[in-house]
Structure formats: structure tokens, C-alpha cells
């Protein structure tokens, strides 16, 4: 099972981590980025830092990443200004991003690293309304890639002081591990053990957001499992969107499965006649 939850400190880093870290100013974020990267270095991973301000701070060579020049020289660290990573004229294509990171991870492993550890400050992308939907789709695609045992892990940084609160919550919602002291997302969606997992509370307010996330998820798979074992609360609107998701997949001849549902969820599903509507019987929480 992947690490998931709400974080207050960067803490111990693990393979397949996908952390959303929100911060107020870059000077407070730089030590967190260094600690996250240093954890990867200790594990023998290649490090990649994407961004503008954060790249400047890493370049200064502060402990625990003091010897930046040596790391750069031996190819253990790469610093990538945001403009180089995301071409501002060509738009932002999640599939292209995936190709880039797949190649980078493959290269790192071929060069003898255990994988690749990325810190990416994507505040500028999130601030651009035209790119926001694609950014969310990319985050979700990337999470699938990280969960699959590819060897990639990442910390995605969002500067909350310059972004709308809703944008930050949207972004945090597609990470298994979240540090967002100013406003933790009510639920998170991530990949785990081949399933799409939902953790937290899904009510009428969050239902539209979950609908958007699920719409970007697994559109090309024939069997999709939604794991609800970490859901603490779901209301009628949340249950309804799961039913619509399931019905949408059935209409495309896919086979949706619902696992880890609570007794109350199953009662609600039956009372609202969603079993008849979707042909799907939710499964319970097995040991």
C-alpha cells in the first residue's frame, strides 16, 4: 500500500511518493525541497528540480544539498527552469509530460540510479486558467505512473499565497500525500495497487471536483476499480457521482468495480436504486 495522508513535516521519503506541498514563500519552501531531494539522494535516486525561484535556492548549495556543483557534474542532479520544462508557447500537454518523465526515469535507471526524484514548483502553471485543467490531468496521470513502480517520485509545490484557494484544493486533491496547512482538501484521489483510491470526505461541495478528477482517470481501461476503503464520509451527491461514473463506464463496455465500501454506502446505493441503475454491486471492506 502506498504512503498516503496529510503531512505537517516532509518526513521520511519513500519510493513512489507523490507529495503536494503548499507554501507561502519560497524561502520557507527551499529547506523542504532540499530535505526531500536529499532523501532521494540517500536512496540512490537521480534528482530533478523544476521551477524558477526554487531552482535558484537549490543552486546556492545549502545543507543537506551543499555540494550542488559536484552533484550537477556527476549527473546526480539536474536543475530545470520552468520555461525549459514547459514550453509556454506550445501549451501544456499531459501526454508529452508523461513521455518526458518516462524517458527521464528510464535514463536514470540505465545510468545506475534507483529511480528519479522530482521537485517541481508548478505555481505558474496553476495560476494560468488556460492550463489548469491540463495540469490536473497531468498530476493524475503522473500519480498513476509513480504508483506503478516506475521508480519516479515527486513533490509538487504550489505557492498558496498567489493562487486561489480552490485551485490549490483542486491540485492537492490528486495527490496521495498532502501538506496544506491553510486548507487540506476534503478528499484525495490517487492510484494504489492498480486501483483508483479515494480518501477523505466526499459531499455535495466536493462532488463536482471528484467528478472532474474521475473523468480524467482511466478513460482507456476496460476494467477500473474504485477503492473507497479510505472514505470517511460520502453523501447522496457523492454516491450519485460514483453511480454516474459507473454507468458511464458501463456505457463504454468497461467493467467498473467498487471496493472497500462501508455498510452505510451499500445501504445508500441500494435505497437510491443505483444497483438497478448501474448493474454494479459495491463490495465491502475486506481484511
Amino acid at each position, binding site marked *: 500500500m502506498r504512503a498516503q495522508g496529510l503531512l505537517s513535516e516532509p518526513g521520511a521519503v519513500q519510493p513512489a511518493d507523490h507529495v503536494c506541498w503548499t507554501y507561502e514563500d519560497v524561502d520557507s519552501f527551499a529547506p523542504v525541497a532540499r530535505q526531500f531531494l536529499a532523501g532521494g539522494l540517500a536512496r540512490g535516486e537521480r534528482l530533478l528540480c523544476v521551477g524558477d525561484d526554487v531552482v535558484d535556492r537549490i543552486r546556492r548549495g545549502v545543507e543537506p544539498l551543499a555540494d550542488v556543483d559536484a552533484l550537477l557534474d556527476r549527473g546526480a542532479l539536474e536543475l530545470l527552469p520552468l520555461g525549459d520544462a514547459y514550453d509556454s508557447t506550445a501549451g501544456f500537454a499531459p501526454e508529452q509530460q508523461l513521455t518526458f518523465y518516462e524517458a527521464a526515469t528510464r535514463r536514470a535507471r540505465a545510468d545506475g540510479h534507483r529511480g528519479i526524484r522530482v521537485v517541481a514548483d508548478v505555481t505558474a502553471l496553476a495560476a494560468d486558467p488556460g492550463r489548469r485543467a491540463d495540469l490536473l490531468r497531468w498530476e493524475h496521470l503522473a500519480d498513476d505512473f509513480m504508483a506503478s513502480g516506475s521508480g519516479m517520485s515527486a513533490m509538487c509545490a504550489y505557492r498558496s499565497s498567489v493562487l486561489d484557494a480552490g485551485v490549490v484544493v483542486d491540485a492537492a486533491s490528486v495527490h496521495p500525500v498532502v501538506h496544506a496547512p491553510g486548507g487540506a482538501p476534503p478528499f484525495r484521489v490517487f492510484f494504489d495497487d492498480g486501483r483508483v483510491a479515494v480518501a477523505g470526505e466526499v459531499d455535495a*461541495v466536493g462532488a463536482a471536483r471528484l467528478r472532474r478528477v474521475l473523468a480524467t482517470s482511466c478513460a482507456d481501461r476496460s476494467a477500473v476499480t474504485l477503492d473507497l476503503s479510505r472514505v470517511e464520509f460520502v453523501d*447522496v451527491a457523492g454516491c450519485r457521482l460514483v453511480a454516474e461514473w459507473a454507468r458511464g463506464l458501463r456505457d463504454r463496455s468497461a467493467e467498473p468495480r467498487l471496493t472497500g465500501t462501508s455498510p452505510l454506502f451499500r445501504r445508500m446505493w441500494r435505497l437510491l436504486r443505483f444497483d438497478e441503475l448501474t448493474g454494479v454491486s459495491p463490495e465491502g471492506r475486506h481484511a
Partner: protein
Amino acid sequence: MTAHLLEAAPVGGFSHEVVFYRDEDDFLARVLPFVREGLEGDEEVVVAEPEPRLDLLRDALADDARAVTLLDMADIGANPARIIAVWEAAVDEHIGAGRGLRGVGEPAYVGRSDVELAECQLHEVLLNPAFSSGPGWRLLCPYDEQLPPAVRAGALTSHPVRLTPTGGLSSDAHDPAAHVGAFAALLPAPPGTALRSRYRDGDVPAVRRAVAGFATGCGLSRERMEDLELAASELATNSIRHGGGSGSLVMWAEPGAAVVEFTDGGRVADPLTGRRRPSLDQIGGRGLYLVNQLTDLVQLRSGPDGTTVRLTTWR
């Protein structure tokens, strides 16, 4: 009270009939012929009675009991706001399959509390608008003569027809618009010691926590607490989305019950909201229906001055 003999048995539409009985023998003498007549006419017969009368009918029907659907009213009608959906399902299933249908339903029986009997009366008046425009069927509602006079008088208001040994009499006391006033009537005020708070957009999670904490403090089991938490979330969301954007939460304990009430400035136009079975055609608007299914007793009232939903959970 005057009554007129009907010219003929009701034809076509829904016929909502009351019959009064003195004791168990009298109950059987009045209800059994109604059931047998249905069976002889090859109608589907659905009986919703509390014990011991459910058993009494089963024994009296002997082998014919197998041909009758017997439901425990104490179960399906514990919250009277759930009963109309049960009859709707029977209408859909049997009349939809081309058969005739007759029902026996006794929601208001001796032993129920005043607050339950009040909801039974509202349920009875709402049966008329619920089925008046649909296919024809007969529903006979037995009332015990030992029920309080106000309950028996209410039965004559809510039922257009009173069944007597000689046939159906139309009741002068029947008020076809009774549901309008009953749905808008005020509930008795909460006690002065009740906990009161206001909620608005963004407060629904806090309402859930407050209700869950109150339910736990009242000694409700985890399962009942979670039912109430879900119901609270639906009702607070309704206030914010459809009830003027905000509402009041009032909570208090009564002997044997935890009570949670939601009030807002909106108006529920259709008094049958939450009582009808969810259709498979449209997927929206099922919050109040679920609240009715999850809660021991739901009292919904709505009028020009706003909407109140009072949830009672027995301890």
C-alpha cells in the same frame, strides 16, 4: 357526522377507505372479506399490518396466505414517511404487470406515540394526492376504535370513503385539501434548553461534526450516529442550496430519543418530496428520500414562512 351511501363502488381511480374495528374478532370480520374479495377477483393483495393482527390475518387466511403479500407495518411504516414508496412499488409492480391491486394498511395503531400518530395523519392525507392521478386501486385502512378521538376524527378527514358492512359510504368529513394545511402546520416548539446554532455555505462539515458529537453524547450507537450524520449533511446542504443559503440547527434530548431539527427560509413546493420512490429515469434529488429511509421518524413541514425538518432517533 353524516354519510351517504355511494351510488356504486368506486370505479377507475384510487379509493382510500377507512374501517373502524372494536377488537380482533371485529377486525377479522371487516378486513378478511375485503382480502378474500380481492383474491377471488384475481387481484394482487398486499397487507401492511402490525403484529398481532398480521399473524391473525395469516392464520385466518390459512392456505390463501401464500397468495397475499404480508408486510409488517411496524417495520415498513416505523417512519410513516416511508410508506407511500412501498405502495408505489406495489402499484408499479402489479398494476404495471396488468393485474388489479388492493391493499390493507394500518399505520396508526394503538401503542404509537403522539408524535408518530401525527405523522401517520399527515401520511394518510398525502396518500390522496400521491395516487389520485394514477391507476385505480383500493386501499383499506383499519383504525382501532380505542385510538384517541382526535386520531379517529383525523381518519374521517383523510379518507374519502368509510367502509361499512353494507358497503362504502362517502365521508362528509373528508377534506380533499387537508394535505395543504397539514403540510404547512407548525410543529410544537423545541424546548428552551435545546442547543441552537446557525449554518451557511461552507459549514456543512461542521454541522456533520456537531450532529455526530451530539448523537454520540446521547448514547446512540456508531451505526445510528452515522445515519444521523448523513441525514444532517443532506438537510444542511438543502438549506444552503435551496433554502435561502443558510439555516438553523437545533438539537435536544427527549426521554428515549435524540432530536435534531433543521430550519430554513426556503419552501418545499411538493409535500410528497422525499416520499416517492426514486425513479430510474432521473438520478437527481434523492436527499430527502434517503433521510426518510435512514431516520426513525422524520417530520417535514413547509409553508410560506419556511421549512422545518425534525429528525427523531429512538434510543
